[in-house]
């Protein structure tokens, strides 16, 4: 096997089931009643069933599918937020998940404090954040708002700050879930530029986007999910054409 075709992500037969009856487990009494009646864990929802694919180093991998197809769910499984009910995921390298920007923000704290908090949530050291702090604030264009509590920020400002922190280190794998739809046009442009820069440096990228044009422009491989199952997997043109013929 040559180095070029090295898999950095291997998704093997992943099935993800959600429990739809969580409130029923709130009390011990109900738990035991259900246990005796053997009703436990019955109401389940399968968001992904038996999904497999590989992503090689340097790939720009697109995921398309309708709402509720399981696109965000597979991204969460890959980034380790969710553990698959069945199957396995093998990852080789560091991941920067742009799934929910600013997930670790504390709304009461200032932008400055949140840079440090969110940075450590992502596993960065405070010393490292010190050296990158100005760069983060510049990219997010928040020079005048560094000491303002982020609860006063607009969603665009939050997205900028979240993106700036999450991409401050060049990761081996970048995961982008429809975040490019928030913020204004200029910011989207800026994000795309930064992502392209990372691609040039060999970062493997997984993109979920509503815009099929964006997928066609950026990706070399695409998977189409439908109701949690793999509908199609292959070259961009092939999959996108098939997908477009259904959506039209």
């Amino acid at each position, binding site marked *: 096997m040559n180095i070029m075709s090295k898999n950095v992500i291997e998704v093997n037969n992943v099935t993800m089931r959600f429990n739809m009856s*969580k409130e029923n487990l709130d009390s*011990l009494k109900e738990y035991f009643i259900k246990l005796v009646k053997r009703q436990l864990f019955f109401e389940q929802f399968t968001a992904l069933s038996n999904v497999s694919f590989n992503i090689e180093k340097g790939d720009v991998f697109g995921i398309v599918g309708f709402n509720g197809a399981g696109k965000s769910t597979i991204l969460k499984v890959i980034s380790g937020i969710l553990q698959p009910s069945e199957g396995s995921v093998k990852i080789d390298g560091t991941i920067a*998940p742009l799934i929910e920007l600013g997930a670790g923000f504390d709304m009461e704290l200032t932008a400055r404090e949140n840079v440090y*908090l969110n940075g450590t949530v992502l*596993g960065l050291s405070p010393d490292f954040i010190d050296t990158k702090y100005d760069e983060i604030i510049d990219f997010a264009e928040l020079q005048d708002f560094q000491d303002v509590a982020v609860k006063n920020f607009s969603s665009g400002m939050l997205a900028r700050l979240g993106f700036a922190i999450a991409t401050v280190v060049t990761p081996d794998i970048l995961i982008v879930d429809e975040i490019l739809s928030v913020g204004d046009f200029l910011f989207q442009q800026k994000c795309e530029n930064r992502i392209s820069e990372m691609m040039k440096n060999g970062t493997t990228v997984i993109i979920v986007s509503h815009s099929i044009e964006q997928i066609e422009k950026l990706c070399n491989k695409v998977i189409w999910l439908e109701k949690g199952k793999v509908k199609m997997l292959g070259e961009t043109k092939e999959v996108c054409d098939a997908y477009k013929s259904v959506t039209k």
Partner: protein
Amino acid sequence: MKTDVKNFLKYRYLLFNLISRDIKVKYRRSVLGLVWSILNPLLMMLVMTAVFSQIFKFDIPNFPLYYLIGSTVWGFFSEATNSCIMSILSASSLIKKVYIPKYIFPLEKIVFAFVNMLFSFIAVAIIFAITGTPLTWTALLIPVPMIYTLIFSAGMGLLLSALTVYFRDILHLYGVILTAWMYFTPIFYPINALPEFMQNLIKINPLYHYVSYTRDILMYNTVPSLETNLICIIYALVSLFVGIVVFKKLQKNFILYI
């Protein structure tokens, strides 16, 4: 195992960050925060001394110190485990959105409770000074019972934080259990005031051993026996083992229940 260590090292900054946030909230935002955390046990000690050594006439030399050491060790265990209970549930918004090793949250609460206990020891030191009680070299062993109690509490905390995700009743039950457990620990009474079978029963209680150990080295210039040390270690390790095993098994599905 190796990846666990690497993972912990990566997230240690987050751990420090969360702890320092808790400390800031408790001690910096109110000037009186630190003063209260010393004054509170001292005032409690006055009340307990009045009630138990004057009214009930327990025959304990230096009752204030006896009580204060007991309540400090107990207070750590009780605060640590009690704050662990909610630790996973209150971190739910974070757990749902980013990958973080989940034990960070109960661990943070335990370390924070430990820091609080260190501050409470200032109160103990004040009473040593006021009562003119001499300290001998055995006091240097103080890290030993502290580490025993820490490990025991960490195990219990991990266990409770994981179980509570599935059974919210524990939130309500644990308060009652803690109260019963406290009366079952000789904090303000001497163990020899009890009938023999009760004494034997209390010797099952790990907290009895941790409290007595601390008193032995601080007040009675005694080095606890090898047997006592073994009992303390076994309780601590069993608790930690059970805590880790249960937590590891349950954490996979936390996200589906929070």
